[in-house]
């Protein structure tokens, strides 16, 4: 839900050009903040980017639909805002080269995915101080997914409004009202919440596993938390 498969040529130029410029500015800022990092961090970031791509390719059967996970929330928790944004950018570039989403929406894709990932770690740290890491990861993942999805819907709404000729057409206005009132409430919202729930539970399972086996990979934990049998 939170990664756009929008192809080239359907969004108004104003939307994707602004998205591309913003995405590049954020990329430059994230590049500055990770300048001191060595090849070890780059390799880890790339591995998590590879896992995002691999997991996106596997459909998760929920009800009658298949859902494609993004792992943006957990990756945001594990890498932090700057690293996760860079991983999301690279993932969207490779997806575009593979025909999953257009080249012109690489910026918007990276912003949508990266924004969700960027807010995940602060949320995780705030909640993990009071409860188990798995619960904190689930909550951070859910908020991250909701935030990305809200951004996604906002971009679509702006795009439809800016589409040439659409804003003043009575039929389009009527269709938009119907979409807003009926389809969103009846179909999109329940599916979105179900998808967020699935992604949160995946985050829960992921953090529960890491907390048991390699807690030092979770933020806020140290190598002293590593169980003896895992570090042996």
């Amino acid at each position, binding site marked *: 839900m939170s990664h756009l498969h929008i192809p*080239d*040529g359907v969004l108004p130029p104003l939307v994707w050009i602004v998205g591309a410029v913003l995405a590049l500015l954020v990329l430059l800022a994230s*590049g500055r903040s990770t300048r001191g990092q060595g090849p070890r961090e780059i390799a880890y970031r790339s*591995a998590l980017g590879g*896992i995002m791509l*691999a997991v996106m390719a596997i459909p998760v059967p929920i009800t009658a639909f298949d859902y494609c996970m993004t792992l943006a929330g957990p990756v945001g928790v594990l890498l932090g805002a700057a690293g996760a944004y860079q991983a999301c950018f690279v993932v969207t570039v*490779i997806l575009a080269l593979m025909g999953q989403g257009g*080249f012109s929406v690489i910026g918007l894709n990276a912003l949508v995915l990266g924004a969700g990932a960027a807010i995940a770690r602060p949320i995780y740290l705030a909640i993990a101080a009071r409860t188990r890491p798995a619960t904190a990861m689930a909550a951070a993942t859910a908020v991250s997914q909701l935030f990305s999805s809200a951004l996604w819907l906002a971009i679509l709404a702006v795009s439809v409004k800016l589409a040439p000729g659409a804003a003043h057409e009575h039929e389009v206005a009527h269709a938009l009202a119907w979409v807003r009132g009926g389809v969103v409430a009846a179909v999109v919202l329940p599916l979105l919440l179900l998808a967020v729930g699935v992604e949160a539970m995946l985050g829960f399972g992921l953090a529960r596993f890491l907390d048991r086996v390699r807690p030092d990979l979770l933020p806020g934990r140290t190598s002293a938390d590593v169980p003896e049998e895992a570090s042996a």
Partner: protein
Amino acid sequence: MINTFAQVDYLASAGGSVWHRASALTKLAAAVAVIGGALFANGWPALAALLVTVIVLVLTARLPLRLILAAITAPLLFAFVFAAAAWDGQAAHAAPRLVRPVIAGVVALWLVGTTPYPDLFAPISRVLPRAVGDSLFLTYRAVFSLLGRVERLWKALFLRGALQGPVRRRAGMMGEAVGTVVLYGFERSHRLYQVMHLRGHSGRICGCRHWLDLRREDAWVIGVLLWVVVAAIVFHGAPRS
């Protein structure tokens, strides 16, 4: 999906067409020109010229028909939703929303199907921050082993009944399974880091095989580039769609 990834990767390295022998830089420039032309074309003649151009490109690159059809149909599914959302009762207004994504999708296939990824990523990584440029290479390299591992893992979960039962149980199990892949990715990144050091990593992955080596075949790509520019200018004043 891993088969498609692998097939495109193999075709890019093993193909022998004139496009395969051309440099990555000129092909990237031509692809950008075609996509830019499709995005900003304001008339049917320009879009038709671009569509014919990209179809000729992929056919002469000798890419499999299955991949070409996939490149045509995949963006159509999503473009159709947008065309329907902005439907104003005139097919002439909706049709460009369907044709533009097809042109972009097919030219993307031509680009990745004729250019090995180190050559393709080398010019892209030059304009990105160093860490992001390096990540581009390493992520692509990691995808193959991780994708294979995730697919095997999913198959094992399915065979052992982990994909049965309530969604909460299934998602929790899948989360733990993804945890094993994250752990594998972490260990793999450590090994990769050590290999990079052993091989004398200088702080930047070069990827500079011959992405800038201009050859005779580049004349064809430059010809395509010029044709796209000329078509955009000539058909600019043509009737609006």
